């Protein structure tokens, strides 16, 4: 016999509406990686979304405590495997600041070129897979055809297509290939009409706009409260980009704009804005690459690499602008050849938290639209 008050018993026998729990399991064609979403539905409207992560955890931060400083770089590659150059750049800039060494100008310019090429490649994947989620299968293949050219550029420089181990502490592992500048200029020339084609095929298509406009609107104060950065924040209307507001490397020397969401197809901060900000960012990256190629200085790329990397004891936090937001590294060194602690602030981890806020009140089909527009990579979230 249970002792319950009379009101409780009456409430329990009253009519309850059914709440269904739908599980978009770790294996699903549309969650970008192994992500489990637990969706609570009332009819067709969503009341709560809980993401479950951890299916791709590989103990990166623990490994980093056992490796020497140069050996950590292949591990940083594998966190956000679609934008490996930025992972390396962030870590390397941090260690260089701890060691207090200056790198030659040529190294900085090449790092910027590689970073911006990597940004274009990562955005192409995001846009292509977003198209497939919405149902348009063809732009995916066009995006990947262009991405192949970028990966070929990386392949002739350092030998690998996806996980480079190219940016080393104090310099680079190889100098540019003799054909690199010519091939990059050809790529830029071929790519500009392809962006226009992508816009005509997908971005301005009425059906696509109907699917994504006014879906998943991210208000400005919610974005700031959660700490969202990158294209997701810029799509809500705020002009915040680490390359202009907290510059690192030689980004001050280039002339480019920061695209901000304006709500052209609906409200400011909806999924179409997040998508379109990425398309515009690709165009701006092309401008930066052109300017960097034009003013590339000569020099030696390996002169500043120290023989044995043993930073003095201290801590530092560096941040770079990943294609997905602000990637931060917090490195504590205790004077030995292994770092004491490497902590990574992954932008996708923060962006995934807004799923619950954005999905409330939408239909089930919109979950995939919203998830695709936030552009997460599970390797970064789980590390």
């Amino acid at each position, binding site marked *: 016999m249970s002792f319950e008050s009379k009101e409780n018993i009456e409430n329990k026998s009253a009519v309850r509406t059914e709440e269904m729990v739908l599980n978009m399991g770790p294996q699903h064609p549309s969650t970008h990686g192994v992500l489990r979403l637990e969706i609570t539905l009332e009819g067709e409207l969503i009341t709560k979304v809980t993401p479950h992560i951890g299916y791709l955890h590989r103990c990166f931060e623990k490994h980093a405590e056992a490796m020497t400083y140069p*050996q950590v770089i*292949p591990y940083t590659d594998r966190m956000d495997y679609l934008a490996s150059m930025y992972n390396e750049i962030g870590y390397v800039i941090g260690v260089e600041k701890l060691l207090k060494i200056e790198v030659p100008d040529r190294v900085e310019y090449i790092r910027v070129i590689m970073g911006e090429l990597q940004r274009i490649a990562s955005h192409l994947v995001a846009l292509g897979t977003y198209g497939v989620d919405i149902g348009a299968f063809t732009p995916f293949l*066009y995006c990947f055809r262009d991405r192949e050219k970028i990966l070929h550029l990386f392949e002739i420089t350092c*030998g690998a297509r996806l996980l480079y181990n190219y940016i080393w502490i104090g310099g680079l592992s190889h100098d540019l*290939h003799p054909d690199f500048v010519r091939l990059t200029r050809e790529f830029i020339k071929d790519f500009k009409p392809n962006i226009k084609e992508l816009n005509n095929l997908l971005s301005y*298509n009425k059906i696509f706009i109907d699917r994504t406009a006014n879906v998943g609107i991210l208000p400005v104060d919610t974005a700031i409260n959660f700490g969202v950065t990158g294209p997701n924040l810029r799509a809500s209307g705020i002009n915040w980009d680490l390359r202009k507001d907290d510059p690192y490397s030689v980004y001050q020397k280039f002339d480019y704009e920061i695209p901000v969401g304006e709500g052209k197809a609906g409200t400011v901060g909806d999924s179409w804005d997040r998508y379109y900000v990425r398309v515009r960012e690709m165009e701006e990256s092309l401008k930066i690459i052109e300017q960097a190629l034009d003013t590339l200085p000569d020099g030696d790329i390996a002169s500043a690499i120290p023989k044995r990397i043993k930073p003095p004891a201290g801590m530092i936090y560096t941040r770079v602008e990943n294609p997905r937001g602000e990637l931060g590294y917090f490195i504590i060194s205790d004077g030995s050849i292994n770092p004491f602690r490497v902590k990574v602030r992954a932008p996708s981890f923060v962006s995934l938290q807004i799923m619950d806020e954005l999905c409330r009140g939408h239909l089930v089909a919109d979950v995939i639209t919203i998830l695709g527009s936030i552009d997460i990579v599970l390797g970064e979230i789980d590390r």
Partner: protein
Amino acid sequence: MKEYFSNIFTAFSTVWTGMKITFKHLFIPSVTIQYPEVRLQLPERERNRLYVNMDDCIGCDQCARACPVNCISIETVKSVPGDDLGKTSNGKKKALWVTRFDIDFAKCCYCQLCVFPCPTECIYMTDVYEFSEFDRDKLIYEFSTLTKEEKREKLERLDRHYNEREADKLGRM
């Protein structure tokens, strides 16, 4: 009311623009190749399977220490004075017998960190990428050129050398 008709109009015009693009692509030759009859020419800095030229290896263990995943295992035996192991291609005299040089390609992450510290440039990455096996143990490549009897013989000679030195020291005392 006006929005009703402008919706219809934009729908048709954007659909028509999209259709023109895909129609144009029907006549563009394909960008894919028919692997395995046609293979891509890989660039010269390509990073695939490692190769070790044992004639040049001096057994310094630098590559094993640089590897982030510990896939290289090296065991060496000191040579007895009077043994001639030959020279490497850039003129250094070798002093260690390399009895074991195993690379486990299931662990290798193809990062190239082992290539740079080698003083004789005997370990390098080739462009071989089709080396899959059915059995994981077959992916452990053994590069050492000494046979089992030779390894035992070298170890015994080293032991005998140390014993003779001990005996000499005791004898002199």
